[in-house]
């Protein structure tokens, strides 16, 4: 399955996506208009894990409050590591989600859904959880589309990479990027 996963989506695409989410949340305030009136707030919650390029196993983990702001996390990037998993918080309207995005297929893991129905009718619980699961998917889809468009544009090399590199090396103050 691991090889199949890599054929389905090379692992570095997920790593780049996680990196972009982290960078955006640290420097761009973690707010994105996904179009058609859809807006989402997001931030790195309490865990980031890294791997060495070409490998799948975890090589470093940062946990605790705001691991994305720690010098150790950026040092891991500056040391050539790439992201493996990221624990993300997302907010849409008044609904807040927590989820670990994991591995090359960007799988949803340990997702905490803001459900209100806890006990009672199975159908009621199921419909609410499916609505929330789909909403989480909608946000992730919107974020990935935005990332994919940027990653494949000239803007990535010209605008984003220099900022990302400077940020990873602690050489730049957090600046809201123009279009990153």
């Amino acid at each position, binding site marked *: *399955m*691991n090889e*199949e*996963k890599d054929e*389905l*989506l*090379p692992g*570095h*695409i*997920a*790593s*780049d*996506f996680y*990196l972009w989410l982290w960078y955006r949340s640290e420097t761009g305030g973690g707010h994105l208009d996904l179009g058609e009136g859809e807006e989402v707030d997001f931030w790195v919650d309490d865990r980031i894990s890294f791997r060495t*390029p070409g490998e799948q196993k975890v090589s470093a983990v940062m946990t605790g409050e705001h691991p994305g702001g720690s010098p150790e996390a950026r040092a891991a*990037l*500056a*040391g*050539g*590591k*790439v992201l493996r998993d990221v624990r993300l918080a997302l907010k849409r309207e008044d609904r807040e989600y927590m989820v670990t995005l*994991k*591995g090359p*297929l*960007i*799988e*949803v*893991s*340990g*997702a*905490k*859904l803001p459900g209100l129905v*806890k006990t009672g009718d*199975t*159908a009621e*619980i*199921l*419909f609410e*959880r*499916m609505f929330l*699961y789909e909403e989480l998917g909608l946000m*992730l*889809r919107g974020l*990935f*589309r935005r990332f*994919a*468009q940027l*990653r*494949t544009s000239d803007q990535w090399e010209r605008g984003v*990479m220099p900022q*990302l*590199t400077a940020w*990873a*090396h602690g050489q730049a103050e957090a600046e809201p990027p123009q279009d990153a």
Partner: protein
Amino acid sequence: MGILSGGLSVRRYRVEGQLPEAREALITALNGNAFREPLSPVHKEEVMGWTQVHNLLDTSFDDINLWLYNHYAIFALRIDKKTLPAKLFKAHLQKRQQAWCKESGRERVPAKVKEELKELLEMEMLRQTLPKVAVHELVWNLQEGWLAVHSQSDAVNDKLRKHFHRSFSMVLQPVTPLEWTADLPEVADRLLSMGTTELGDGQ
């Protein structure tokens, strides 16, 4: 923790193939591939099959109201396997071999006898051992043709895909984020050709 409660850890699939129009066909497929206890108590191979999510001992899908909610079908894959504790087995076997040597007045146990003692002990211990039971809940959106299983283990997912195909003659294809850009084919193509972004000092 699963589809109906707790944190959600899922792998998502697109369901490919012809969904039977009649719900009776689904009932037949689920019942026909539901979990069945092995006939022999010394059965050591893995056994798997569908169960209800409400109770893993409920394996009848005749009552549609217990597993189909509008267009969502929820059920679970139960996988049982009996495993003997290796160290305990080895210790018992050693005792049996020592006893055999004492009884027969020989210093060593011949290979054939060793094998017989081993098989006998295995059967005795299997009879006393309960299986390890794993239950993996899943939800299948019949209308939109996707399925999410509450497991990210590659081994479990491989078994699920095989059992699902055996049951419904339909194929589970893992959903990738590239499908989120399906309406932007040039973006998906370019994305696949991109290299790794590394921000190390060598860059």
